[in-house]
């Protein structure tokens, strides 16, 4: 690990200034991913700006949304009474991720900004466009069992990237149409989840639409009707402490066995949480039934394409969608 300077500013404004004015400075919160990246020599900040003590640790009920401060720990969100009552999908997604120890360190903001776990990204002996733009994508012709099936062009650009985003929380936030609050030295802005992450295209090194020095201060989740009929399904290689092969966040508003609104998002399948808009549309207004769920899953899979080792995702993903919908709807 490279030697670095460590600073602990006392205000949000000061923290943002420190990073915005120095391209080699980085925020650090829980550090559960950044420290790994530094150990591997992938991140080599000259200055670490510790934001852990900044006043971004509240979970607050606002008019028609819940605001969760960026520094609230994953474990705090997952066990928070109000979250459990109004947004149980969030708790389910968080508890499906990492381990108890990590959830006790990791923050909400940090969770959203964690980097992919693609092995080609972490080992500097391999090429990786996300690590060194233009060096090539190791996974494209390599071992791609964990990689994307959505958001990948028919002929993937060798300068692009087929990695997936590893966060479970962001999949749930995407289904719940949360907004990310960020603050930069030019002021505040609100980024809808749908616009927060990017597809790799020709700039795979850029995971999000954040600008340098912008700090996530909170996420806001609209009060919704998704208390009763939600499910986060995570398919993985072991029972706990594994990244998703495929995950599905399903949220339904059901009235008298009829679906008023449906929200679906998937993890482990794309460079960002993958909203299933077509499937959602298809489900709206339908009576709850496995047949309908199956049709929605088929619609959701349009445009998916596999590489050498991840064709199984094309089979698992629709099953997972149906299963998540069934569990959300209470169909057994």
């Amino acid at each position, binding site marked *: 690990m490279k030697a670095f300077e460590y600073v602990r500013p006392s205000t949000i404004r000061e923290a943002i200034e420190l990073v915005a004015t120095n391209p080699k400075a980085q925020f650090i919160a829980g550090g559960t991913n950044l420290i790994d990246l530094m150990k591997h020599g992938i991140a080599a900040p000259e200055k670490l700006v510790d934001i852990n003590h900044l006043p971004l640790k509240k979970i607050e009920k606002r008019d028609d949304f819940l605001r969760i401060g960026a520094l609230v720990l994953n474990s705090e969100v997952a066990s928070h009474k109000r979250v459990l009552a109004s947004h149980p999908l969030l708790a389910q997604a968080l508890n499906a991720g990492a*381990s108890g120890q990590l959830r006790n360190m990791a923050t909400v903001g940090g969770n959203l900004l964690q980097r992919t*776990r693609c092995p080609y990204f972490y*080992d500097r002996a*391999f090429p990786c466009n996300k690590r060194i733009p233009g060096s090539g994508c190791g996974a494209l012709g390599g071992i791609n069992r964990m990689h994307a099936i959505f958001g990948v062009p028919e002929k993937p650009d060798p300068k692009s990237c087929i990695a997936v985003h590893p966060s479970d929380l962001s999949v749930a936030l995407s289904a719940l149409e949360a907004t990310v609050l960020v603050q930069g030295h030019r002021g505040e802005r609100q980024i809808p989840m749908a616009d927060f992450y990017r597809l790799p295209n020709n700039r795979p090194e850029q995971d999000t639409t954040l600008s340098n020095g912008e700090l996530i201060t909170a996420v806001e989740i609209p009060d919704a009707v998704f208390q009763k009929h939600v499910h986060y399904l995570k398919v993985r290689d072991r*029972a706990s*402490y594994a990244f998703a092969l495929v995950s599905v966040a399903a949220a339904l508003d059901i009235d008298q066995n009829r679906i008023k609104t449906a929200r679906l998002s998937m993890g482990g399948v794309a460079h960002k949480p993958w909203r299933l808009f077509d499937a959602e549309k298809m489900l709206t207004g339908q009576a709850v039934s496995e047949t309908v769920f199956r049709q929605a899953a088929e619609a959701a899979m349009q445009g998916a394409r596999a590489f050498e080792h991840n064709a*199984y995702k094309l089979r698992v993903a629709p099953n997972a969608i149906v299963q998540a919908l069934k569990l959300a709807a209470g169909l057994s």
Partner: protein
Amino acid sequence: MANAHLRPAEPEPSLNRVDGRLKVTGAATYSAEYPFDNLAHAVLITSTIAKGRIANINAKPAEAAPGVLAVISHKNTPGVPAYPPVKQPAERAPIGTAFRVFYDELIYFSGQPVAMVVAQTLEQAQHAASLVEIDYQTETHQTDFVANRSTAAIAVNVQRNKTSPFQDYDRGDPDALPSAEVKLEATYTIPTQHHQPLEPHAIIAVWEADDKLTVYDKNQGVKSAQGNLAQAFKLPREQVKVNAQFIGGAFGSGIRVWPHTVAAVLAAKQVKRPVKLVLGRELMFTSVGYRPFTVQKIAMGATKTGILTAITHEGTGQTSAYEEHLERTILATRAMYACLNVSTRYRLLNLDVNTPTWMRGPGDATGMFALESALDELAFALQLDPLELRLRNHADADPERNLPWSAKSLKECYRIGAEEFGWKNRKPEPRSMQADGLLVGYGMASSLYGFHRHPSKAKAVMQADGSVVIQSATMDIGPGTGTAMTQIAARILGVSPKKIRFDLGDSSLPDAPGQNGSATIPSVGSAVHDACKALKNKLLILGASMPGSILSSAWPDEIVIKNGRIYPNAESRSSVLYTDILKYHKLPQVEMTEESKSGPERDQYSMYSFGCHFVEVHVSPVTGEVRVKRVVTCADVGKIINYKTARSQSIGGVVGGIGMALMEESVMDHRYGRYVTSDFASYHIPVHADIPQIEVFFVDQPDVHVNPIGAKGLGEIAIVGVAAAVANAVFHATGKRVRELPITVDKLV
């Protein structure tokens, strides 16, 4: 969390781990934790290519970095005295040459140490390591087992040794297979798997003088490490001291002395300070061996009634380009079942990878996955219960050596296992059992492991205060060696375990084998037994010689000793204390050292441990996820010395077997000849949530032919067969036969 039940009742309460408190309070000192004021830190730089040569090393930027004491490579190494002079130009080492660290510019595998930075602090060494610039000249490498399989051959080692067990083996009638009533042929693959103990390998090397070396090194055999280092550095054995008192797991990764250990010794020599070197998790994948990628073809013939008439078993394992690693892959098949006609073939495939090594149940865990899967396939083909098929082919004597077993209670293991598991509730048809929308499968497999006993010494000392010290250069990589040995000593001497101290893990102690091959209890346990018996006899003779001693007229076999108090017989109320005897004779201590080893019984009996595993899995028909719900395991390993530690040993073996069956796989990108699974995020081992209730049973009958304590080894047999039992259960649940481990979602959906 595993929860082992104990039935039948424990014959006597198990001694708790003698070092348990030290371990859970952090008071136990592991190799990397020995404090030295002037400790320097070494960091290895490893090759990023799989084959070729180092064209250039630019160490200047690293040498100029803060805190750096040395940058060592083949260009400036102080040299290992036992290495032959380097040839110019460098030539590739012939097969059979152990890897030589910093020897010449040749690259044999990705992850090979090519340079090392030594600095004042670890962080300085790590940073400087990133500044060393290395240019390679690459050559075409071959790391892909499947693509190169046709080049596999009989090992050179085997070609030279006509009595090698890995010679082609044929018994009986070669036409038995083609003419069998029922035939089956299948190919089974196990991927490369890594030991990955939680404690990484680590060493602190200290040159006490120019000709005197001490190492605190994580390994499984202080005596073999001592011999190896003495030879490498051309020192008399007694000038090398190896200490490895506490080991945080090893599973075979610490049997050899690996290049990083030699590297640290070189570093300490170069900088003239104690040097610590700890392998990072990613280096643990290329530095300390692994279970080799192995492909096995099994063909079986049987009668319609399920009597095996022929088995052929061909195994091909991966090894490096410079060494041959042979393991027992095909050997179990010769001894396991009563089959007249058996052929085995064993081949090796040299690839541009580092050398594999023994990993828990080496060869047997691999071979029995294939054999016991094939048995299950045969049972299905015959419409016969898998357990019944095994019973019908039970070997009442060793069919390979034509010798009686020293002891064998496998049928009793089957009975206990089947009953405790509820095997009778298994519906024969695959996919016929369900629970909560999940497919339920029951599977079973047999296990066996050869008996190993090596010459071992132990010293037993009775001190004037009545406390006892037992010493042997044996090891504890986790099973609880000190606890079991203390229990053996306490039983013989009639002394409370609290008064006994057992010393191990130090090369200056009496000679003992390393901890491998499930040989510790059988070998060292026997030596401790013999030493304690000799000590007791000596003390009794001394006691009887005291004037008016109540022991002078006692019959030796009637003497009863409790808490250090010697009674001439069970009825007697008067007694003599051990301490009285030493006091009378004015002795500060009385000691005896004994060596214990096998005798002619090795040629009269065939010696194995036996056992079986019963597994229930639940498989999601939707996602293909497999979870093990229940395991019942039963072993016949002779006398159980300590039920509690034995049970833990069995649980650990089953956990390892579940990992082997369902998740462990080191995946290589063959374009680079480099692993893409070099961390715990991608190399999966089971977590608590993967481990269900595991019930452990033992037959617990002493094997009177093997050694004075009647105990056989347990460490390896605990894992042998588990992967097959899981795979068989998955077949029963799903109707899908997975012959390539691990059994992951992608293979089931």
